[in-house]
């Protein structure tokens, strides 16, 4: 029997929320963060992602790989799974940003302003 997957410790994640779902983005992958009214736009891997809330930054997360059973029922791309404050979250793969975070309407594509103190 193969051992259960082990988490990989990586350092520095920006935690964001979209439609109630918690996501983690490696600090090193964040290219920009701009405010658009009450929402934000996050630049990752050359893509612009829409988010509702910046939850904060955590110094490290234990990241588990996606399991086969999860991939079978959730086809979106992700870099792994983690838990923060007893809440599960999905790690964004900067090379394959998830469809769930894509900008959804033209208003989100308008030019925004840099959020004070929140650029990484």
């Amino acid at each position: 029997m193969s051992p259960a997957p082990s988490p990989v410790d990586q350092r520095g994640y920006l935690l964001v929320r979209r439609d109630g779902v918690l996501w983690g983005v490696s600090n090193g992958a964040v290219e920009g963060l701009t405010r658009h009214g009450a929402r934000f736009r996050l630049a990752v891997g050359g893509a612009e992602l829409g988010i509702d809330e910046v939850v904060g930054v955590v110094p490290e997360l234990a990241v588990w790989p996606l399991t086969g059973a999860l991939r079978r029922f959730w086809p979106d791309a992700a870099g792994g799974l983690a838990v923060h404050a007893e809440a599960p979250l999905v790690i964004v793969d900067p090379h394959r940003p998830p469809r769930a975070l894509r900008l959804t309407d033209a208003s989100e594509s308008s030019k925004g302003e840099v959020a004070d103190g929140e650029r990484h």
Partner: protein
Amino acid sequence: MAEPLAESGHRRGLSAGSHLLVQAGEYVCALPLRSVRRVLRALTVHPLPGATDELKGLAEFGGEPLPVLELARLVGAPTGAKPAYPVTIVVWVGPQDARELVGLAADAALEVSEVQLTSVVAGNGGFILGEALVDGEVVRVVNLEALGGDQ
């Protein structure tokens, strides 16, 4: 940490035919007890956008992320009455050499019962191994190995 169900059952003399019977919608399903790790009051689940109907979302279990699947959807059970004490059953799925943990959301855990696999009929060759009679009631016997990711 509490002792895993399968291990405690083994010491009590439960056989390979021992199954946990659970209510899933209008169906009663039988889960092989050796694959059951824990039965919990329903975990808080965080839905994932874009997931299929079978995947309720992610939960936290023992400090780790846990995918939670809706058992009634997996077996195609009609929706039953609103459960009074819904549960999450943490089980091992997939082949023995690549097993992984998932949660199964169900309406209730009923009892442990013997299901003779030679009596199972009418399976679909996949997730439902077939049907069997237990105390005069039809139960759907679940093949958790078929729930792995590479099926």
